[in-house]
């Protein structure tokens, strides 16, 4: 553990937070010092984001104490946090594309000249140019509309916005996930300049290898608890992975006999310019293959290509050994490919419509007479059958999906993919935002489907999930498939492979 005499800039002691029955974090301790980069790591659901929200004032802790510069502080709202000098840069920049960089940075607290309350553009721009210089951006960006900048540049604008309010603590929530290697290098340069100026940086990342280039200290979280804080010099990627995963019991997973069936789905050297390249994956009949990669590694883009939402620019996709050019989701469905989208609310759910509506959408022709009129009996029958098979908890099939829990809604969206037994089932983050019980059930169902002969491709950033259900795991890193693991691989090996530290 780190020990210093110095008063930390921000210290959280024994902080806990529950959401209903879920203990998001318990007795977590955390401290950042001025001029240091403090990395916060943990698997999905370990409590990192709740921790960040408490610091940023977006959530309030149930119990525990927060000290700022050694003085007890109360952070009940985002305004409180900003008042203390805590600034947060979220993954999705909250900027106004039609306004200039300078305007975005000063929105809501414009500098005004006394005359007619006019915005003092010169003063604002001068300040912005200063910030841009610090960030290594050309000064002409000050007057550029944000909408014309790249994602990476927009993120830097968000950082500049945070700095314009004289931030003492800067939270960066997975800043590297959407950046290229060169952009990450620029980001690190910025962080170093900030720490040199005395800013305390809380750095969240899934990419463990990069911590060794930027972090001073690392706090590891697991299951809502802080496991410990260590100087980065004392750790290796494998050790961090070990701390994140814990003394993982080898999951009591019944070992399935995978039949050596014919290849159903093959991706050969598949690529999409700027997104991913040279992806090779084969899924056989009855097999479950996991594509495991961190957020931003390109996994989700691969899934979109297999389903015809995006189009590949290189390589080929083969279904049952014959090459196909998948034009649209509709075409993918005709080829026997079904896909469970990653973002349930946006890409999956028809909010205020019924369960039956949600299940039959996309299979309307199959549930119709003469291809025109809905066969309501068939629709209802199919809905009831799938509700039963997936154990959806609901009084009736007319219930609106928006009123259901995450796990139940996910089952309904999954049920849609099973109406016409697919040859290939692609599942993108099948259990994200799903409670433990439903997660268990969804995993069991996936295994059943494979046993019935479906070729299953699970695209996931959830490590235990990949290990638990897959017969083979393909690691995706930096937009390409790297290593392959069997079901007996250790979590530490997998995490190290995906996070980029191989020793």
């Amino acid at each position: 553990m780190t020990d210093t005499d110095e008063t930390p800039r921000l210290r959280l002691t024994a902080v806990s937070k529950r959401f209903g029955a879920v203990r998001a974090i318990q007795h977590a301790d955390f401290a950042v010092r001025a001029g240091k980069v403090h990395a916060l790591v943990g698997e999905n659901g370990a409590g990192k984001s709740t921790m960040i929200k408490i610091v940023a004032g977006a959530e309030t802790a149930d119990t525990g104490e927060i000290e700022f510069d050694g003085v007890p502080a109360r952070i009940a709202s985002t305004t409180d946090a900003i008042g203390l000098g805590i600034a947060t840069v979220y993954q999705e920049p909250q900027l106004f594309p039609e306004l200039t960089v300078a305007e975005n940075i000063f929105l809501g607290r414009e500098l005004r000249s006394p005359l007619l309350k006019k915005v003092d553009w010169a003063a604002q721009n001068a300040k912005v140019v200063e910030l841009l210089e610090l960030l290594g951006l050309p000064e002409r960006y000050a007057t550029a509309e944000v909408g014309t900048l790249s994602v990476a540049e927009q993120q830097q604008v968000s950082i500049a916005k945070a700095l314009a309010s004289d931030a003492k603590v800067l939270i960066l929530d997975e800043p590297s996930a959407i950046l290229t290697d060169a952009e990450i290098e620029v980001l690190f340069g910025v962080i170093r300049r900030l720490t040199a100026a005395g800013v305390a940086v809380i750095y969240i990342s899934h990419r463990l290898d990069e911590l060794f280039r930027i972090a001073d200290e690392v706090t590891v979280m697991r299951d809502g608890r802080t496991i410990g804080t260590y100087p980065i010099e004392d750790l290796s990627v494998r050790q961090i992975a070990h701390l994140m995963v814990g003394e993982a019991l080898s999951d009591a997973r019944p070992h399935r006999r995978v039949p050596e069936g014919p290849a159903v789905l093959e991706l050969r050297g598949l690529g999409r310019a700027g997104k991913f390249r040279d992806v090779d994956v084969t899924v056989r009949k009855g097999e479950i293959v996991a594509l495991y990669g961190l957020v931003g590694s390109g996994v989700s883009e691969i899934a979109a290509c297999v389903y015809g939402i995006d189009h590949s620019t290189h390589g080929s996709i083969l279904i049952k050994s014959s090459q196909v050019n998948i034009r649209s989701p509709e075409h993918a469905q005709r080829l026997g490919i079904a896909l469970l989208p990653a973002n349930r609310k946006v890409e999956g759910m028809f909010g205020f419509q019924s369960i039956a509506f949600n299940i039959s959408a996309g299979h309307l022709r199959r549930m119709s007479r003469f291809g025109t009129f809905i066969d309501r009996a068939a629709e209802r029958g199919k809905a009831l059958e799938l509700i039963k098979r997936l154990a959806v908890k609901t009084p009736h099939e007319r219930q609106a999906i928006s009123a259901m829990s995450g796990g139940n809604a996910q089952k309904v969206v999954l049920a849609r993919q099973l109406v016409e037994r697919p040859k290939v089932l692609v599942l993108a983050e099948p259990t994200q935002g799903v409670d433990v019980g439903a997660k268990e059930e969804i995993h069991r169902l996936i295994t059943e489907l494979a046993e019935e002969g479906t070729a299953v491709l699970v695209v996931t950033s959830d490590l235990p999930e990949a290990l638990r259900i897959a017969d083979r795991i393909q690691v995706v890193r930096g937009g390409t498939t790297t290593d392959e693991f069997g079901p007996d691989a250790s979590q530490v090996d997998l995490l190290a492979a995906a996070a980029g530290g191989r020793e």
Partner: protein
Amino acid sequence: MSRAVRILLTQRIALLALLIVVVVVTFFINDAGGYLTAPYDFDYMSASLISAVPLAMLGLAELLVILSGRGGIDLSVGAVVSLAGMVFGFTYGEWGWPLWPAILATAGFGALCGAVNGFLVSYIGFPALIATLATFYAYKSLAIVINDQQPISTKPIQELFSLSKSVELPLFGRYVPDVPLGIFTFLLPTVVAVWLLLARTTYGRRLYAIGTNDVAARWAGLPVKDTRFKAYVYAGLISGLVAVVTVGQFASARPDAGVSGNGMALPAITIAVLGGVAITGGIGRVAGVVLATLLIVWLNAGILLAFVGNEGSQYQLLALGAVLVFAALLNGLTNRRYGGTTS
């Protein structure tokens, strides 16, 4: 009690039904008290239904496009009524086509006008408000220019006035009031067709799906653009039929039939919103639009008897505006309190 309030707030159809009862009872009482200039009875209510025909039909046209989501709306329906009405005037009144082919041509022409809207909105990506504002101007202008601002009221057209006459219903007609013919020849078939389309066909499902969430619709493999395009085509088709009704009612194909005064689009959108159609898409039913029409028609009919001269038509504006603002604020309240209206 709170359950009743909840139902009234969340079930638009229940609220509209209650309001209709309140309106009708109020005017019956006023009638009995002798405060009205003419009797407000079932015969009068039935006769006043003639004005429900274009209103409800265009309300259904708006229902279809608003359901399609992404700010769906059609400001051009009135202009399509004018222009298609001129087409009907030419084909039936001037060129001597038989009635049915002329009606089909008019409806088809309306559908073509709708297809222009649908193409601009769905395939090119114009905001619906803009695309239909533009076509409103274009169609309105063409309708006037096409026959040099002259209405067509030749003999065959004048004889069409019989369309708006009232008829006795078969079998039990003696016991109930006569009903305007247009209700049977145009309104009921349209209501049934739109209801079937929305509630019973795969197209209806697709329309609700894209209106609810068009990203999810794409991921579910639904033809989003094609579905949205067709909503505008159907709205145009209905406007074409309304053109025939309107020509019959005026016994003349007037080049400004659908755009004079307030035009026909504003009342139609008002009826749709009052009927519980969510402007954001995906929510709305045929029954809501029909009940909203009945409410407004019978309210208007009563107001005409309650005031002398053109005061009545003025108070109709007040009633329409007040009911719409009330319904809109109610929707806002319902969204906050109960998480939305279901129909």
